[in-house]
């Protein structure tokens, strides 16, 4: 094991290398491009035995990835934002093929307005595609999740592609110390692509992507995929246990931070949870009983783990870095759905913040904590709030004046 300073993109590339990927269909997009460029460099200098082709779009890239995986080859691909959405048709299609491969999505906001900066609207828009979704908060977690992802994806009880997701800029370009596992240990944890599973081969022809008319066969196969995805949640727990034994790092489906005696919690995913933990530490120093809950898996949605960890709390501030237009934050909706069957459950306060790379400040974390404490006191669920300051609002109006448009405040 060695320690290296790696960016999130560097960690993803190294994870793919350690996993022994054999095929890499690619297409550049900011902030992901460094992943494929790093791998391209290693392939060209001969330190990796992998075939790479830059396709003409993400649509063809994901098609090629799914098809390659169907032949029994360990496949990797990566994208971001517009690219993920451009590939959406194929993302839904390949999960129906039940082919294992790993796709890195470096989260970035969606047009329009056009942005390069991160939020989770891209990945949330694909939550129904049938991929397992793992969300990372550190560069170490990115590397480890790559190895976990292949093992999970290729498990006979899963056979579904897995997305490893992390925030653009905040993680993709931030260097952190990362413990790089020995190849020998990785190989022990992740054996070669299983040969005993269905795949294209010359002596056993099979067909993929068959048309089924009438809803019966269709319902059967769709539900099978759903069940496989739910099963991935159980298998995930088994393999993370094994991972912990080998590498001494644990990755529960839901990370719980200082939750033991907590009355309140922040609930959020991704790298901003590091800011959330910092705020928890500060609030605890000021006497608050508060913690943080971070789902690592969002598909399958960790219903049981969330119910168990949230049920004893009085109030939870759910912070969504996405916005399902016309409804609100997706995490909030799904957490509310998970808690609904419970007789006693915490009050949820819904916050939308960090859109398009906007920061979430320490003061805003404190203010969210205040809001949820107040809600618990009064017993009234507060309305959803966008994290946006007075100053930002004035600045926007100023910009709109320069642009010569009329302003309406949010």
């Amino acid at each position, binding site marked *: 094991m060695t320690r290296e300073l790696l960016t999130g993109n560097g960690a993803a590339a190294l994870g793919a290398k350690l996993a022994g990927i054999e095929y890499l269909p690619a297409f550049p*997009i900011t902030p992901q491009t460094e992943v494929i460029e790093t791998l391209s460099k290693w392939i060209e200098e001969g330190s990796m035995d992998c075939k790479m082709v830059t396709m003409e779009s993400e649509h063809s890239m994901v098609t090629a990835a799914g098809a390659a995986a169907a032949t029994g080859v360990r496949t990797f691909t990566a994208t971001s934002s517009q690219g993920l959405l451009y590939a959406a048709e194929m993302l839904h299609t390949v999960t129906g093929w039940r082919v294992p491969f790993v796709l890195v999505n470096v989260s970035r906001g969606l047009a329009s307005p056009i942005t390069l900066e991160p939020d989770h609207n891209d990945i949330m828009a694909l939550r129904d595609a049938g991929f397992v979704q793992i969300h990372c908060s550190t560069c170490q977690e990115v590397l480890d999740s790559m190895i976990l992802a292949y093992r999970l994806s290729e498990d006979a009880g899963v056979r579904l592609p897995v997305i490893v997701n992390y925030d653009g800029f905040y993680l993709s370009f931030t260097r952190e110390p990362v413990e790089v596992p020995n190849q020998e240990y990785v190989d022990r944890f992740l054996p070669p692509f299983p040969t005993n599973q269905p795949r294209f081969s010359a002596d056993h022809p099979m067909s993929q992507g068959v048309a089924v008319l009438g809803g019966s066969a269709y319902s059967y196969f769709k539900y099978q995929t759903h069940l496989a995805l739910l099963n991935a949640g159980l298998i995930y727990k088994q393999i993370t246990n094994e991972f912990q034994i080998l590498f001494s790092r644990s990755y529960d489906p839901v990370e719980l931070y200082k939750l033991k005696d907590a009355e309140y919690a922040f609930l959020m995913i991704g790298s901003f949870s590091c800011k959330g933990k910092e705020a928890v530490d500060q609030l605890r120093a000021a006497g608050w009983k508060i913690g943080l809950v971070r789902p690592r898996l969002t598909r399958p949605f960790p219903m049981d783990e969330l119910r168990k960890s949230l049920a004893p709390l009085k109030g939870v501030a759910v912070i969504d870095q996405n916005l399902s237009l016309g409804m609100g934050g997706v995490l909030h909706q799904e957490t509310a759905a998970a808690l609904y069957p419970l007789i006693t459950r915490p009050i949820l306060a819904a916050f939308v913040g960090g859109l398009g790379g906007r920061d979430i400040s320490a003061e805003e974390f404190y203010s969210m904590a205040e809001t949820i404490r107040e809600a618990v006191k009064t017993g009234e669920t507060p309305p959803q709030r966008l994290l946006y300051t007075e100053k930002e609002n004035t600045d926007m109006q100023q910009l709109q004046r320069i642009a010569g448009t009329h302003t309406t405040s949010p």
Partner: protein
Amino acid sequence: MRISVEQIRRKYLRHDKKFPHVWCPGCGNGIVMGALLRAIDGLSLPKDEVVLASGIGCSGRMPTYLDFNTLHTTHGRALTFATGIKLAKPSLNVIAIMGDGDASAIGGNHFIHAARRNLNLTAIIINNSIYGMTGGQYSPTTPFGSKSTTSVHGHIEQAFSIAELAVTSGAGFVARSTVYHAELMAHLIEMAIEKVGFSVVEVISNCHVQYGRRNQLGGAVEMLQSYKDNAVTVKRATSLTEEELEGKITIGVLADREMPISTEEYEKVRQRAKERGGNVGC
């Protein structure tokens, strides 16, 4: 009289809102922008009747800087947006500005079909042989053997010739220039805008930062010099053998022909339907 740079700045640039621009010093994109503005000015097109649509890329930033109706779309979709605008408001002058990636990779399908349909649009394609904005990966116009971040030992695929692709796909007007030939470029853009039908101007341009540097082609000046040295006119090209044309850039008008134009043909169908007493609602 030709419009001066200062007049261009005041008349057409969003100089007080959108500058400084993001292009690298010496990038060919600025030369194309200048030529486009001189062409529009030469034709005395009212600003309100010009629509610029672009995709994503360094080239895609151009409409942001210009004071017309502008639409910065998604990667590869400039022509589809332009098509929508033209079909809804045929009286507007719609100009799509694309990079080689925009037009021939992710948006390649739209490109050949817009040409086949021969819709009355103008397409300006800035071909710098590379994906500039994302940092220098090979594109469909990267020449065989060239280096990019995704072909460190040299590219192993053949390049598209964009202008020739437009000709075979059925565009009414197709021309090629380089950024060295700025005057010719402005003239070709004028012709393209005036032409009724799908008109394409491919401009060979320098991305010295992502492409030139990796392929030892020098900086902006050296790349422009090579365009000067290697350009041959369409007329001269006809007297050269294939070997002699190797490495040369054919500039000028490659095709100028009358073909059915889809908006006009559609109008005829509507007229016929009306005459037969059909109900043409929209």
